[in-house]
């Protein structure tokens, strides 16, 4: 058996550490900014020690309706995720179990929808939403993001269901399930890990999405990602306020990823037999 030398392990660990620091440094800087007094943010050389203050948070809450921004972000991303899974999972299953030779082609066609630059669809979609009176609401963003994500979910679930031998569903049918029962009680729980991966993807995409809500929402329905940009560059708003606001933009999604990741790993290791 080949033994990995200690030197190599040390080298690998140090490299990983350096790269991690490189990636996290801007995040750390932004987060730490929120706890610095305004006059110390741009001090040169940067000061590593400072007396933490919550002034920036007080400022952020004074200027922005943070609760409403976070709520918008949550509604848009949860709405998109639920709707995408609700449509994409059955569609993927139908394609995977279809006996048509065109089914795999269709699945790839759905993937291609995801490849379209969203901006190309945004203008016609804007007009469409205006005509049906949804422009400026959460629904406009949810429907647009669902259109993009659902295509991806369909393709992804198609591959998951395709890899699942039909035996289990057939066993469920002989056990007395209807076709729908076999899908809901056996096929869906078996591909749970795949669904969680899809959900995580949809959630992150919608939470971090800036462009679509920027165009499609008005002030009441604006999510935090859009607010972050409007915060930048105005006279009253300092880097410190931006740092404080960034907390509310990153913490929920990081928590969600950590929480879902636990189930994702569990689902993957439980696996099919």
């Amino acid at each position, binding site marked *: 058996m080949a033994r990995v030398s200690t030197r190599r392990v040390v080298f690998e660990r140090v490299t990983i550490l350096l790269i991690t620091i490189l990636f996290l440094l801007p995040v750390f800087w932004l987060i730490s900014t929120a706890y610095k007094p305004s006059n110390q943010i741009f001090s040169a050389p940067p000061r590593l020690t400072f007396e933490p203050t919550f002034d920036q948070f007080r400022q952020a809450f004074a200027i922005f309706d943070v609760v409403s921004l976070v709520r918008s972000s949550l509604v848009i991303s949860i709405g998109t995720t639920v709707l995408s899974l609700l449509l994409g999972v059955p569609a993927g299953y139908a394609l995977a179990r279809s006996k048509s030779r065109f089914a795999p082609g269709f699945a790839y066609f759905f993937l291609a929808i995801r490849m379209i630059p969203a901006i190309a669809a945004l203008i016609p979609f804007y007009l469409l939403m205006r005509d049906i009176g949804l422009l400026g609401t959460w629904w406009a963003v949810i429907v647009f993001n669902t259109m993009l994500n659902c295509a991806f979910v369909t393709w992804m679930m198609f591959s998951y269901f395709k890899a699942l031998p039909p035996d289990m569903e057939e066993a469920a*049918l002989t*056990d007395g399930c209807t076709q729908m029962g076999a899908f809901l009680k056996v096929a869906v729980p078996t591909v749970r890990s795949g669904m969680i991966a899809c959900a995580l993807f949809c959630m992150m995409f919608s939470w971090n999405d800036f462009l679509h809500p920027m165009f499609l929402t008005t002030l009441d329905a604006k999510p935090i990602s859009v607010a972050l940009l409007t915060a930048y560059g105005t006279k009253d708003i300092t880097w410190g306020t931006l740092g404080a606001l960034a907390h509310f933009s990153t913490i929920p999604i990081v928590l969600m990823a950590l929480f879902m990741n636990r189930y994702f790993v569990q689902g993957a290791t439980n696996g099919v*037999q």
Partner: protein
Amino acid sequence: MAQISFENVSKTYPGGKAAALVNFNLNIKDGEFIVLVGPSGCGKTTALRMIAGLEDISGGTLRINDTVANEQAPRDRDIAMVFQSYALYPHLTVAENIAFGLKVRGIKTDVIAKKVRETADLLELTEFLDRKPARLSGGQRQRVAMGRALVRSPNAFLMDEPLSNLDARLRGQMRAEISRLQRMTAVTTVYVTHDQVEAMTMGDRVAVMNKGTIQQLDTPRRLYDKPANMFVASFIGSPPINFMEAAVVSHDGGPAVSCGDFLLPLGISGARLSPRIGGKVILGIRPEHLKVAPQSRSTGVLSAETSFVEDLGATLLLHMSGHGIAIGHANMVEDERDLMKTAPKLKALIDSSHRISRGDAIALTVDPSLVLFFDPETGVTL
């Protein structure tokens, strides 16, 4: 309890070259254990899946208890199936797997719990009830699959090669166990396998299938003693039967067969060959029917040279080449190409008390009443 009957059932797949089932007729009696056996692609699994309602029927009628079942949904047939892959629900525990069918049918929780306990006791699964299938051994999973079928007391059990994923020792054990459970419950059972040992040991009747049709439907004993044709003769019996091309000749006023140096007078057992004197015939001699000839014998002796000896402990399996003897084999789908690659050898299964090694010349005899004869054109038993 159920009677199941196929009447001229056929199955063709769109784009498929050959039909999976051709004019398939089979009557399965109530409480019977029937085995469908044959090489892969012979249509046995298709027939089984038709009974379960998992396969569309292209033509003909399938009846379950005198009701036409062609279009019946699987859930309305009340039939339990054990799959080759076991098809256990990976997200449910053993107990939930067994209870699934009952729960779907809306049976009361306390009744379910009682039945699951009884079934688990019967199959010695009690200590695993809380485990997920991923944490069970192959044998345990197999028993869970059995439990899932048994717990429902269905009209019929369908089993699709349920033992093929087990190791040899466990397979032998489960063979006996399944037979015992079937006798105990007396539920009509259709069992699909490609293993002729399972077919011989388990079924009340066995249907030997090839290319979508039943070659012979009979008791295991009759399949072995009186096979309908060369295919059945070669499929049933292990090691497989020897086929030799022979001429039918007249010897001392009666028919005899001659094959190279080997001349076998048939006596009364060969009376049916009398009209064929001067013609050709295929001999079928089972390896276990060949005996080492006593020194004194001169007629009816088959002399051969041993090219390979397999010592099986109690017996020796000899692979031999006979002088001027052409060994043939039946037209079988499975491993046909492999069979063609190697020139078939004459095989004999003899007592291990004989000291025989590679290269030895050996003289063998056979009781003419045990020899099978086949038409060289059609392969049908004469």
